[in-house]
């Protein structure tokens, strides 16, 4: 029999939290483009008269454009996030905020929360189901399930370390909502709303399933790199990013796994339907899931005990020796730009406008045994292999192979990889040749009209500063 409840309204939950002007509030982005929690909560905070808040989200996207008005009104004066997209990113790139946005990788955010460097006062965590004591999940076992997002991996450090935790759900279920992702002991209040997110949009945004022939060519080349890298043996582990090509790679790797009778021990990271399929076929032993990238993955994490949810810390922290990236063999990542020192930019577009997210890029590139970047030489007239990246996100020291449709470049620090790929008949080129090829097609771009104001600070996963982003003019 229930003798206790944490159920309350959003306004009452905020009052009870002790939130004051200038404090730090946090959110996760598991609903991606379908998120409704950030806008709902910040609208309420504005209505209640709060000012000067620091919004620390695991990431922000197109759907968060309404924050622009709250920034102009002084409700939000600082942002920490992994990424920014859409109109909010556009305005910030043009100098909307006085304080620069702090960008961290997912692992870097986890570490910063654990160490207290990013201290969260009140966490507002959307959940797909919750009981009235606060046991919360990113899926629901009830018949009224409205919005499912799967893993709550990016919310778990917030739940663990925030001073005060408010769970916001659209499916209040009878106690006990077990198995749970966030245990009731970490939760102060539970708020029921009409909708926390639109699940149909969790795969919107960064993720595309490509039919583009160039993406398919890139995927086939990347699969050949994986297969001939020396790491493709029974028990290997792998992570893929969300670009069209890096998703398609999985299909070609699967064929070779079947042909050779090789199985993977685990797949890590953002988990997609592609990975779930291989797992269900018995080709991947375990799925370690910090973020479910589609509905299939979100359902799988609910139903399959070998599909394990992990926190951002257990996924990718550089400061915790137990984080899964330390056991990762290969990672396939995309890029906006790679330069001739193998540095990668995944955050700022070649027009100087922020249009992406660090995500797990830094973390997986640094700690995997082999990191493979897949990108075309050009996107329209925009070069992807350049003399120098617009913004440094992942240092070249942790990038091993760059796959383009004009050839594969291997970091000179990894000569053994180049030898293995050459022996397999792959076309290995110097990365300077790729950059020169791009220039020969498009000409030399004029410098971007950057201003003097710093609008973003890019943190490395160890808490050091990697680069600054300046405002763009014109």
């Amino acid at each position: 029999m229930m003798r206790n409840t944490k159920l309350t309204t959003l306004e009452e939950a905020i009052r009870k939290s002790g939130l004051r002007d200038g404090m730090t509030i946090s959110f996760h982005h598991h609903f991606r483009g379908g998120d409704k929690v950030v806008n709902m909560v910040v609208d309420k905070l504005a209505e209640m008269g709060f000012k000067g808040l620091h919004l620390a989200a695991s990431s922000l996207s197109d759907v968060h454009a309404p924050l622009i008005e709250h920034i102009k009104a002084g409700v939000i004066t600082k942002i920490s996030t992994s990424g920014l997209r859409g109109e909010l990113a556009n305005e910030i790139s043009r100098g909307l905020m006085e304080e620069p946005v702090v960008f961290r990788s997912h692992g870097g955010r986890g570490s910063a929360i654990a160490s207290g460097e990013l201290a969260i006062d009140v966490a507002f965590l959307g959940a797909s189901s919750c009981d009235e004591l606060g046991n919360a999940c990113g899926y629901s076992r009830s018949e009224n399930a409205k919005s499912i997002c799967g893993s709550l991996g990016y919310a778990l450090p917030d739940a663990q370390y925030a001073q005060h935790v408010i769970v916001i759900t659209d499916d209040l279920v009878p106690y006990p909502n077990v198995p749970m992702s966030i245990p009731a002991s970490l939760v102060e209040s539970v708020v029921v709303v009409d909708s926390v997110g639109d699940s149909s949009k969790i795969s919107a945004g960064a993720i595309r399933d490509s039919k583009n022939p160039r993406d398919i060519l890139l995927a086939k080349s990347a699969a050949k790199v994986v297969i001939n890298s020396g790491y493709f043996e029974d028990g290997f582990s792998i992570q893929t990013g969300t670009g069209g090509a890096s998703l398609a790679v999985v299909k070609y790797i699967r064929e070779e796994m079947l042909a050779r009778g090789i199985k993977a021990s685990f797949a890590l990271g953002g988990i997609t339907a592609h990975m779930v399929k291989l797992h269900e076929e018995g080709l991947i032993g375990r799925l370690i899931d910090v973020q479910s990238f589609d509905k299939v993955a979100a359902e799988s994490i609910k139903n399959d005990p070998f599909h394990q949810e992990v926190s951002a810390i257990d996924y990718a922290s550089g400061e915790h020796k137990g984080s899964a990236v330390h056991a990762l063999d290969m990672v396939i990542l995309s890029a906006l730009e790679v330069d001739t020192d193998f540095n990668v930019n995944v955050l700022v577009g070649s027009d100087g406008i922020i249009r992406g997210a660090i995500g797990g890029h830094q973390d997986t590139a640094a700690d995997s045994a082999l990191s493979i970047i897949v990108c075309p030489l050009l996107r329209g007239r925009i070069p992807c292999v350049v003399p120098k990246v617009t913004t440094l996100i992942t240092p070249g020291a942790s990038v091993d192979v760059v796959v383009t449709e004009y050839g594969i470049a291997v970091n000179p620090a990894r000569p053994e990889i180049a030898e293995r790929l050459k022996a397999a008949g792959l076309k290995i080129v110097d990365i300077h040749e790729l950059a020169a090829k791009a220039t020969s097609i498009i000409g030399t771009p004029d410098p971007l009209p950057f201003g003097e104001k710093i609008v973003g600070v890019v943190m490395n996963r160890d808490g050091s500063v990697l680069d600054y982003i300046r405002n763009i003019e014109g």
Partner: protein
Amino acid sequence: MEIKPASAGTLESGDILVRIAPATTDGLSIDLESSVAAQFGGQIRHLITETLEGLGVEKADVTAVDKGALDCTIRARVTAAAVRATGKDVWRD
């Protein structure tokens, strides 16, 4: 050379839409809108001018909406628009 309003190209990514109309000023007037204007605006204008002058078009109003087209595409679209505008088929005549 007499110019009639004409166009070539599309607004697809990687393409350029070129419109040519009778001149309202002396010489070539080029109104360019480009997704890569900051980095390539100068190069694209220069290429449009060079292509038109090469075809003998020295007075016209040109409106171009560029979606990141490569030089070969820009040259082809400008040429096609000029052929339609002048009735002088450079490929056949």
